[in-house]
């Protein structure tokens, strides 16, 4: 399919190329206006100076130095500096959430693609997966509170069964609850692309594997996983970029006690420290781009699509 398109495109006349440019123009323009220009502005502002009420145009690395100030040594309390510990904590969540959503997302997609035979049933179950998305993100998060809280359902259940004497505190406002909410919110972003890749796998390959005497696990590992790697990669990019930038989920589920890069940026913008926030945003962008660059090293996404 893709090779056909490429062949016609290269062999086309100049007018056709011009047409192609025109077709690409609207999106390119939107991209330029609403992404590239603002990004350039942020990069510019990150070099500016500021005081309580105004931004002062300048070119100084002061904001970047301020962010990494004190990072060369431990603080008096024996911690890393704010920036490093915040990034470490955000990366930790990223890794945990990515692993868990990948596992769950892959299993669900596998079940939908290979075990559910009728397309009608597939669609129905697929829609069922999206049901949680019918309510707002914030409501979904907040509804964990009466479930996991000190006097919540889970604790009442555990105490009622006599499993624990005092309420379990780490269920809410902890790393656990943050990861739980993330997994609940973002597994869907894994399921969709993986399911999509799986549906495009030629079923005769599975039969061939079976005929050649491969076990179920061998087929899974040597045939299905490699062929759905684009889906896995796209899902991973979704989940990783969302978790890296999130501050609402970490705020609500962490009881505002767990730091995230997004939260720091939000606090800084609300105190009109735009240049500092911009510098932080640039660093975050660089980190996320590096992660994605690393991922695309593993799978050549353009070739696969």
């Amino acid at each position, binding site marked *: 399919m893709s090779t056909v398109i490429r062949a016609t495109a290269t062999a086309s006349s100049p007018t056709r190329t011009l047409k192609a440019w025109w077709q690409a123009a609207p999106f390119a323009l939107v991209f330029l206006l609403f992404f590239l220009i603002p990004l350039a502005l942020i990069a510019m502002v990150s070099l500016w100076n500021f005081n309580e009420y105004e931004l002062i145009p300048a070119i100084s690395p002061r904001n970047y130095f301020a962010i990494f100030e004190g990072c060369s040594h431990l603080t008096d309390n024996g911690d890393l500096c*704010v920036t490093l510990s915040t990034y470490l904590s955000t990366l930790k969540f990223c890794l945990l959430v990515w692993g868990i959503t990948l596992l769950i997302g892959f299993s669900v997609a596998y079940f939908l693609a290979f075990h559910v035979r009728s397309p009608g049933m597939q669609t129905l179950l697929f829609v069922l997966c999206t049901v949680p998305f019918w309510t707002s993100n914030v409501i979904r998060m907040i509804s964990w*509170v009466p479930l996991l809280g000190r006097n919540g359902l889970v604790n009442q259940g555990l105490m009622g069964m006599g499993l624990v004497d005092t309420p379990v505190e780490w269920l809410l*406002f902890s790393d656990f609850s943050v990861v739980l909410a993330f997994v609940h919110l973002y597994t869907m972003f894994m399921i969709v692309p993986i399911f999509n890749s799986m549906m495009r796998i030629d079923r005769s390959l599975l039969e061939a594997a079976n005929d050649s005497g491969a076990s179920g696990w061998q087929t899974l590992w040597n045939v299905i996983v490699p062929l759905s790697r684009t889906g896995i990669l796209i899902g991973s990019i979704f989940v990783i970029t969302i978790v890296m930038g999130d501050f609402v989920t970490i705020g609500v589920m962490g009881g505002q006690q767990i730091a995230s890069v997004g939260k720091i940026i939000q606090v800084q913008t609300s105190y009109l420290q735009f240049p500092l926030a911009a510098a932080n945003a640039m660093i975050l962008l660089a980190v996320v781009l590096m992660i994605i660059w690393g991922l695309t090293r593993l799978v050549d996404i353009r070739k696969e699509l």
Partner: protein
Amino acid sequence: MSKKIETPTTGVQRRTLLQGTAGILAAGVFPAIHAQEKIVLRYLGTAVNQDKAIAEKFKADTGIEIQYVAVTTDDVTKRAVTAPNSFDLIDTEYFSLKKIVPTGNLKGIDTKRVKNADKITSLFTKGEVAGKKVGDQGTAPIKVIFLEGEKSKAFSKTPTQFMSLIPTTYNADTLGIRPDLIKRPIGSWAELLNPEFKGKAAILNIPSIGIMDAAMVVEAKGIHKYADKGNMTKAEIDLTIKTLIEAKKAGQFRALWKDFNESVNLMSSGEVVIQSMWSPAVTAVRSKGIACTFQPLKEGYRAWASGFGLPATLSGKKLDGAYEFINWFLDGWAGAYLNRQGYYSAVLETAKAKMEPYEWAYWMEGKPATQDIKSPQGDVIAKAGALRDGGSYEERMGGIACWNAVMDENEYMVRKWNEFVAA
């Protein structure tokens, strides 16, 4: 789909449709231009102060429409600084004036045009309650209420004809507690970090206010005496944050909160039994039938005040309308309305005239209610015989220890606060 569009008939239909839409739009535009003769004031502020009933009553009295623009406290400041033409009337806190006034985006309010200006409570104009000076640490309104001129970017130390903000509501905040779960009297800010409440305390995560609550605790524990809690030195900020970090690492805090509703949930679910709180949040917990006290403490209160300001570019009919609103607001009806919600209003005597004597006795004089006290919506919020937390106006506002503030070392403070959150 794409095929259909290519057929000529659909193309024509689309064109006629577009013309039709343009016609409707044009028809819709003209009445809008005519309607501009009526004054509409865009009122920027936080949702807490934007009461529908006040806008409706004002429209009924004067014909001027109020259009509320509700954003968070921090965003009010942000918009005043970055988009001063997006509102006609601003309702903001006095402490953010230190950020707004130097930009020149606010116009000094001419007190000669405000009928009741000389009756505004002495707390604002002299820094006194019933003739006694109250605490002025932090950004006390008296420090920022007067401007040197109408177009001034500087505050005046002595009273002048021009005010930066005309006060709307103000109050004194303290700790909220769950008396049914604590089961003993609480009398000091130090209790917030008492290990007895390990894992059951909360502090608010708005750095400039949270640090003041923390400072009250540090002073109450006798760790340090601040020269001015509202304007700490770097060393004092370090010390305050260090105390908070130690408490956090020991597991003192169940959560931090930023939104009014979060504090209500934390308290009513019993996750937290002692925390920094705002007075309407305490009322909200109580209205669920859960015991909650806005506990007066021996070290005093952290006070806040907000008021109306006018953008520098406001002129003509809209300016007249804005002055009319301010005059109407100080005339009593709105003041009585706010007093019944547990806030205090700027001009007390006009509000008193619009309140029942038994209401005034309960809300302002700290006397037991002689009959059930109702909110403006008609819900009973205190039974006959009940007393208001903190007593009378004099006791409460006279007990102010410090005011919400913007420090000179604000940037450093915010950075250190982030350290506390990350610890």
